[in-house]
């Protein structure tokens, strides 16, 4: 019997952190391990910052030990105007190995949205006629704000702005802006309309997260859009044993990304959070590096290597 379902049936051990929550907390701590930065209101300046982390984690966060890949991509495209081999290659590496498991299991801003969704307010779903086209907005954000504008927009200095970071990224405002502004009066004096706009975006995303599951991941995140391109063929896959599936649709009702699990288990929208797997009453859903994209698994032994 799989994880969460098994625990609910036994009911003796009380609430436990899921595999997803453990990995999210661990990666948030790992990628933001420069604790002294929060104390001093300064950012880490060590050599590790030349390495891109796999997640949307602002490099202006006082705790950040690595570089944000989306910020780095814009910096390279907007600076030397060279092809970003290193950043793009790093993103491809994470994408081909994990796909959007990065979003579901590692991203600190995904964790923030997950926790906000636990606040007991009435929950809602975006109607499909709006939801479906809106899912493509994140690809537009990736193409226009992250790639085309930094690479092509004319500037006086020859260095283009990181348009996504500047006008949209709520993770930068939350992880970098808020702690640095709290600690640094000089930065506070420089606040203007741009910060008010970014605070509004952040408030909207955080507010929506209490009602809709992961609105930023679904509609706006350019990193999620990039990893989505790899979901169908990444080494890490979800698997569905159709022989075991009883069609109860519990997986689809529980999916935070509203994926049609029984039809497209490795949909570009799947963030591999493992919720469907933990709730499946027959153990038909598996995940790991040995699962097959056809949706079939070899046997019960292989299914044990996953989220439980």
């Amino acid at each position, binding site marked *: 019997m799989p994880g969460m379902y098994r625990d609910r049936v036994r009911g003796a051990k009380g609430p436990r952190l899921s595999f997803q929550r453990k990995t999210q907390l661990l990666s948030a701590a790992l990628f933001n391990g420069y604790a002294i930065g929060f104390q001093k209101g300064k*950012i*880490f*300046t060590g*050599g590790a*910052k*030349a*390495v*891109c982390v796999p997640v949307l984690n*602002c*490099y*202006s966060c006082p705790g*950040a030990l*690595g*570089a*944000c890949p989306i*910020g*780095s991509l814009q*910096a*390279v495209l907007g*600076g*030397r105007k*060279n092809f*970003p*081999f*290193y*950043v*793009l*290659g*790093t993103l*491809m*590496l994470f*994408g*081909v*190995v994990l796909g959007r498991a990065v979003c579901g299991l590692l991203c600190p801003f995904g964790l923030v949205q997950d926790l906000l969704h636990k606040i007991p307010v009435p929950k809602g779903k975006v109607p499909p006629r709006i939801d479906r086209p809106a899912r493509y907005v994140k690809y537009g954000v990736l193409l226009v704000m992250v790639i085309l504008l930094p690479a092509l927009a004319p500037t006086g200095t020859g260095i283009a*702005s*990181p348009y996504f*970071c*500047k006008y949209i*990224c709520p993770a*930068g405002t939350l992880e*970098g*802006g808020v702690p*640095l*502004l709290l600690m640094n009066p000089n*930065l506070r004096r*420089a*606040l203007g309309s*741009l*910060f008010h*706009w*970014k*605070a509004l975006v952040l408030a909207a995303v955080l507010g929506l997260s209490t009602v809709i599951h992961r609105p930023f991941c679904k509609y706006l995140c350019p990193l999620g859009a990039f990893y989505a391109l*790899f979901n*169908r*063929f*990444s080494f890490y*896959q979800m698997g569905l044993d159709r022989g075991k599936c009883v069609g109860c649709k519990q997986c689809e009702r529980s999916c935070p990304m509203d994926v049609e699990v029984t039809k497209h288990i490795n949909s570009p929208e799947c963030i591999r959070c493992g919720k469907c797997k933990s709730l499946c009453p027959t153990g038909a859903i598996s995940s790991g590096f040995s699962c*097959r*994209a*056809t949706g079939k698994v070899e046997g019960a032994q292989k299914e044990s290597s996953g989220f439980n």
Partner: protein
Amino acid sequence: MKSKLRWVPIGVLAAAVMSVAVGAAGGEPREVLGKAVRICLECIGIG
């Protein structure tokens, strides 16, 4: 995995490794470091 798709991740993995190597040889990590060690005013909503 369909047989056609089986080689796709291996090809992409090889391309990714080569891309990282080419970028590293061209000094791109230094550029990333240069950006990441300064407070990004745009990111925090000031610049």
